[in-house]
């Protein structure tokens, strides 16, 4: 029993990573209307940013802020230099360009930081015990970090004027435009949020495992899967689906083995697309 509870806890932590990255994807998909394949490499950037910030200041919080700032900066730069120019083109053009942006990010990080794996140097802490179940205090801190990132995103989306405008654009871009909502400001707010959230997801993934230039790409498929599972354009759905997927992956590991974890994400994605394409919380008309 304790074994399974441990797996579920591990699944919830990796589910936070998947959920946050899926949130980034679903925000972009809902508002800028294309699947952003550079999300994975933005996560890697966040992990490296946090790693450097942590090494310089010795504080994970400062590292996380630096990582999130780097992610937000790349998001905005990507929008200003590439995606804004392609706004009137098909989503294929945007998708191909996002892949290109991701490759460039990965290449830059490969040259800058090398290809060896880095780890966060964190002090070993004795796990707390809840009955027979060991609980890592670090996991709680990571959950807290993810939770505060989520609170910021949902706070901006649902409590601020710019968030209301973002939801208006997501709902009906043409209607938002004739209502006098400037697309540029909405888009910049979107990319700041999407970049920072992806970066925080990358930081958590980096703390839990290792940081390498390829790490983000490997996390992209589960993230897309969770975004579709939760319903494209639904922020709540992305987080819930990410948690479900994370737990499912960990609990399935004893049965299907470690390497098939990512394949599970693919199977879930196919299943959702075929059976319920609007996902858990998606709108009917936005589906497929």
């Amino acid at each position: 029993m304790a074994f399974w509870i441990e797996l579920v806890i591990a699944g919830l932590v990796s589910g936070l990573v998947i959920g946050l990255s899926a949130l980034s994807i679903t925000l972009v998909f809902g508002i800028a209307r294309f699947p952003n394949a550079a999300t994975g490499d933005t996560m890697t950037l966040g992990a490296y940013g946090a790693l450097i910030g942590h090494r310089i200041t010795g504080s994970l919080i400062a590292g996380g802020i630096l990582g999130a700032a780097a992610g937000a900066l790349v998001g905005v730069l990507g929008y200003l230099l590439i995606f804004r120019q392609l706004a009137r083109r098909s989503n294929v053009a945007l998708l191909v360009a996002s892949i290109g942006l991701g490759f460039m990010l990965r290449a830059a990080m490969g040259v800058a930081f090398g290809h060896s794996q880095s780890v966060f140097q964190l002090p070993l802490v004795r796990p707390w015990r809840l009955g027979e179940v060991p609980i890592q205090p670090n996991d709680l801190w990571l959950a807290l970090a993810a939770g505060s990132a989520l609170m910021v995103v949902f706070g901006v989306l649902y409590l601020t004027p710019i968030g209301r405008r973002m939801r208006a654009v997501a709902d009906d871009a043409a209607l938002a435009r004739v209502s006098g909502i400037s697309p540029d400001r909405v888009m910049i707010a979107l990319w700041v949020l999407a970049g920072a959230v992806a970066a925080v997801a990358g930081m958590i993934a980096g703390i839990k495992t290792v940081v390498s230039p390829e790490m983000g790409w490997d996390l992209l498929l589960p993230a897309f899967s969770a975004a579709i599972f939760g319903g494209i354009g639904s922020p709540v759905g992305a987080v819930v689906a990410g948690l479900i997927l994370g737990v499912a992956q960990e609990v399935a590991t004893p049965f299907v083995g470690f390497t098939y974890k990512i394949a599970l994400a693919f199977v879930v994605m196919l299943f959702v697309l075929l059976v319920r394409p609007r996902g858990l919380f998606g709108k009917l008309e936005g589906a497929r």
Partner: protein
Amino acid sequence: MEAYLVAILIITAIYVLLSLGLTLQYGLTGLINFGHVGFFCIGAYAAAILSAYAGLPVIVGFLAAIVLAGLAAFPIGLIALRLRDDYFAIVTLGFSETVRIIVTSEKQLTNGVQGIPGIPRLVDGVGILSALAVLAVLLAANGAAIYAFRRIVASPFGRMIEAIRDNEEAVKALGKDPARFKIQVLVLGAALAGLSGAFYAHYIGYVSPDQFNPLVTFYVWMAIIMGGVGRISGAIVGTALLMLFLEGSRFLRDVMPFISAVDMASIRIGAVGLALVLFTLYRPQGLMGDFTRRR
């Protein structure tokens, strides 16, 4: 020097087969296949397993490569019909990653990450003559593929798939079912990628999962986007440019030895990314022009 030139031509010819498959799928029909390397991988492993492990004649491996890659595309096609194009892109990307996970994990069949060595050559011998013979076979295969391609474009089938790309609703309104055509195109393109994979396995003589990462897919995408989407000439010119770039980056290291091999790999990925972005931004019709409309 001649041997080197022939080697590059052989690899180029293998990639042209891949580019033709993708041109058929994306250029003519508008299917965004981001999992091309998955079909390539299936073809290569089918040929490798049947010839190196089972000891069957090479031709059996080739046929199996074509058939299995084509068959693998069939369920993907069934799913594709029900999806919007960007979802289809993600699904195919996931498919190719899943193929790579399977060949990494199923050790008793594929020998896992160690890969399968000792795949017999197409033509025995080591000299330039045997390499030229391989090249001749490949050129014949390319010629046949291009001939078939031209026949397809000129046929009612070709007009239909281009109509699907340009306006799927209009095709439906005419009482035609786009689904059937999409599946056929997907299977055809995948079979071509499978054939290409069989040639690759027999030429390199060794297959392992890391040869089939998604970067290969985007090499091919870069080739057809550079050359010009939807044209045979575009696929060939683009692939030639791609090879020039891949081989050129190798020479760059001879000139600038201070760049390490792993850094060069990174720079290569970055250059692919830059090319994808710049061509999408400034020259979406590719170098060879385009008879399709804006994208």
